[in-house]
């Protein structure tokens, strides 16, 4: 780093608060021209928020954005782009029915008289950019026909229509094969040699150490330091990421469990997860920890009959079972509290009582009609048990808070008396107070003898509720930890794909 050069971009003391959360707390970050600067942090550490501030999608409450020495204010992504700051999204935001060229220049198509699109110039320019990216397809091709990797190239090409000063890559390799990664890294190095500043966000340590010049770590919305990649190692970065100040109160390991309720052997769903084996006993909570895309949700969906495994077997209460639909799963006593309760768990317009009894309403009848008294009895029982706060059973679930919605979904399955309860991201989008309430509830359920699987991307959560933790990386079980032996370092390393020296 030469002191004479101006950073391409500098963020100073950025503060951003949302109701109830201080998402960014005085974050400093800079990227030099021709530098790859990696941004690291756990889920919820504030990386995405910081990048949205950078891309003009959020306004910081405090702090400054300085581009090439000048403080700037950016209120829309278009303004940010005009300043030469481009964000390449984790989720592709292309119009699949349009050609690559149209996507690259979306919103700023070159025009002729009477507002007609100048197709010739459009295609010339687009093909020039694709050539620069060494792409082997033409700009005229429809995006829907391209592979995911090539679609990502279109997304990158879009960033290069302006003279980019800074390009932000947010988890760019999440959907790429190893070969495609090599191409991407070439492009990044290419941009770098042209003097573009690169911000690289990723969870994958190996990539970060291959690519980056410097690493900045965020934790809980706060800046934790910047390291020069050449002078550091994975351990140091990991330690910075986890920190020591975090409240990592742990579940006290329970000593006695019941029989094995769920046994999964060599379960495989090609392309999603492979050779997964684990057991869950009655009265035990097994936490599944890993990065987004590690295959945890897919395992839950397979257990619940939403996916068909390509190999392996599932045993519930000692019996080998074939689960091909949620109906089967429910009949076998396997329940799923899904990741997105609004999309997958609740009928939002429907009232609380009816949502709660949805899977068993066909058994609650008196003559031809639904026995509403019996339904209400079930609702009242679980409203009390789970402390669901709603003025009346008549409330549509849409108006409840996230925590109470989640309790309705949990109550729905508890009222079915399941053998195995799978809870995917139990506290996503739920405020802090209700969070610990839900954690408490999960522990109580285990104490009552339920076999529980908790899938979570938050380390404090897995540590707080689990008796055992299964760490996953890239569709595989990396290690299984007993709660008494797990360390934060080893957990982070396991889910980052780092093989540990100590035996599992």
């Amino acid at each position: 780093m030469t002191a004479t050069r101006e950073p391409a971009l500098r963020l100073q003391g950025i503060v951003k608060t949302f109701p109830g959360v201080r998402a960014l707390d005085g974050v400093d970050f800079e990227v030099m021209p021709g530098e790859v600067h990696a941004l690291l942090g756990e889920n919820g550490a504030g990386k995405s928020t910081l990048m949205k501030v950078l891309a003009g999608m959020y306004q910081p409450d405090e702090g400054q954005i300085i581009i090439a020495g000048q403080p700037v204010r950016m209120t829309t992504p278009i303004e940010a782009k005009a300043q030469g700051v481009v964000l390449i999204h984790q989720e592709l935001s292309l119009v699949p029915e349009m050609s690559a060229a149209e996507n690259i220049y979306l919103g700023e198509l070159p025009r002729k008289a009477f507002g007609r699109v100048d197709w010739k110039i459009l295609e010339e320019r687009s093909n020039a950019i694709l050539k620069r990216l060494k792409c082997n397809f033409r700009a005229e091709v429809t995006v829907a026909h391209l592979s995911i990797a090539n679609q990502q190239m279109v997304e990158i090409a879009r960033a290069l229509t302006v003279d980019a000063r800074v390009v932000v890559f947010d988890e760019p390799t999440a959907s790429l094969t190893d070969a495609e990664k090599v191409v991407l890294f070439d492009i990044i190095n290419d941009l770098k040699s042209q003097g573009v500043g690169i911000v690289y966000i990723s969870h994958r340590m190996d990539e970060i150490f291959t690519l980056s010049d410097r690493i900045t770590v965020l934790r809980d919305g706060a800046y934790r330091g910047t390291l020069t990649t050449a002078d550091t190692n994975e351990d140091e970065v990991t330690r910075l990421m986890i920190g020591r100040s975090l409240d990592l109160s742990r579940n006290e390991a329970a000593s006695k469990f019941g029989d094995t309720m769920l046994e999964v052997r060599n379960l495989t769903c090609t392309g999603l997860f492979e050779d997964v084996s684990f057991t869950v006993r009655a009265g035990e909570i097994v936490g599944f920890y890993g990065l987004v895309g590690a295959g945890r949700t897919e395992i839950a969906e397979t257990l619940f009959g939403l996916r068909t495994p390509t190999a392996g077997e599932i045993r519930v209460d000692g019996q080998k079972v074939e689960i091909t639909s949620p109906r089967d799963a429910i009949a076998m006593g396997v329940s799923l509290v899904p990741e997105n309760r609004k999309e997958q768990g609740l009928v939002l317009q429907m009232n609380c009582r009816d949502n709660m009894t949805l899977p068993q309403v066909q058994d609650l009848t008196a003559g031809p009609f639904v026995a509403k008294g019996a339904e209400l009895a079930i609702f009242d029982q679980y409203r009390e048990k789970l402390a669901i706060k709603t003025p009346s059973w008549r409330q549509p679930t849409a108006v409840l808070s996230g925590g109470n919605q989640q309790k309705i979904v949990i109550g729905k399955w508890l009222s079915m008396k399941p053998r195995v309860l799978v809870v995917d991201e139990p506290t996503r989008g739920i405020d802090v107070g209700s969070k610990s309430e839900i954690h408490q509830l999960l522990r109580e359920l285990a104490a009552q003898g339920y076999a529980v699987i908790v899938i979570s991307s938050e380390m404090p959560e897995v540590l707080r509720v689990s008796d055992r933790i299964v760490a996953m990386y890239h569709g595989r079980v990396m290690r299984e930890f007993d709660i008494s032996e797990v360390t934060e370092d080893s957990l982070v390393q396991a889910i980052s794909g780092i093989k540990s020296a100590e035996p599992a």
Partner: protein
Amino acid sequence: MANFTQIPLLRWLMRNPIWGFVLIVFIFFSLAADNFFSERNLMNIVVQTSTIGLIALGMTLVMINGNIDLSVGATLALAAAFAVDVQSWAAFATWGNWQILPAVCIALLVGILMGAINGFIVWKTGVDAFIVTLGAMLGIRGLVFVYTGEQSFYAMNFAYSDFSFMTIGPFPVLAVIFAVAVIAVHLLLSRTVHGRNTYAVGGNREAAVNAGIRVGPHMMINFMLIGFLAALSGVLLSTQMGAATPNLGRDYELWVITAVVLGGTKLTGGKGDIIGTLGGVLAIGILRNGMNLMQVPAFYVLVILGSILIAVLFLDKRFNRSADGGLRL
């Protein structure tokens, strides 16, 4: 405002704005149009309304379920053609008035069959119900023309056309049939497991599947019910006319959907009820009848109804949007 919402009737009207509208037009025409407020005319409205009303009951089920059925007008015409034609089949020549029975049964079965085909295709192919029933609308109407040879069928048995003038006590038999159907479908929707699951599937199909509900059979049952009701409507209409014409029931799907949407059922599914649909059907019936009595030309009636449809939905969006927790786009 707080005082208003304490009054149960007003609170009820806030949730069912269409009934407020029904009340207003009812009072308006009672004052403005001679002959409107008479027992005879009011019964007339119910009879006139019953044709669209019966189909609207089925459409409410189908729409709450998250689907739509555009083929009802054509199904009505096909069923009416069968009902009138089968009576004159040689096989039943010696049956006397009993020849009406197999004719009506066959007509109703044809309706159920058409619905079953729609439902089965939607279930098994996953093609959007709008597209499937649009195709069915064209196809079934084509069948009607093939079957009738573009001619009208006339009922030779006068007992058939006398049926529509019969009364049960003081009530016209058509009004009684409609009333029974309203109660039956209301109970089906609000009290049975099938009704509950119809809401669940339309409200959030994924959540319904995750609750172990078999989505397809529920959709198919609802399509069969609307097919039955459309056929019943066709039979009753042909008794009123003593005939079945190949163009019978043209545009009915649009009237029916208008009535159902006016009654508060959402095109996206999951929301609505029979009480609202009844209000929507009556609103259209009263407007048409009242404006007819005031000798407003029929074209203006269409303009006014179209405007009212948009206005009512706009007001509904303004007042009831936030309560749904929906996004304002």
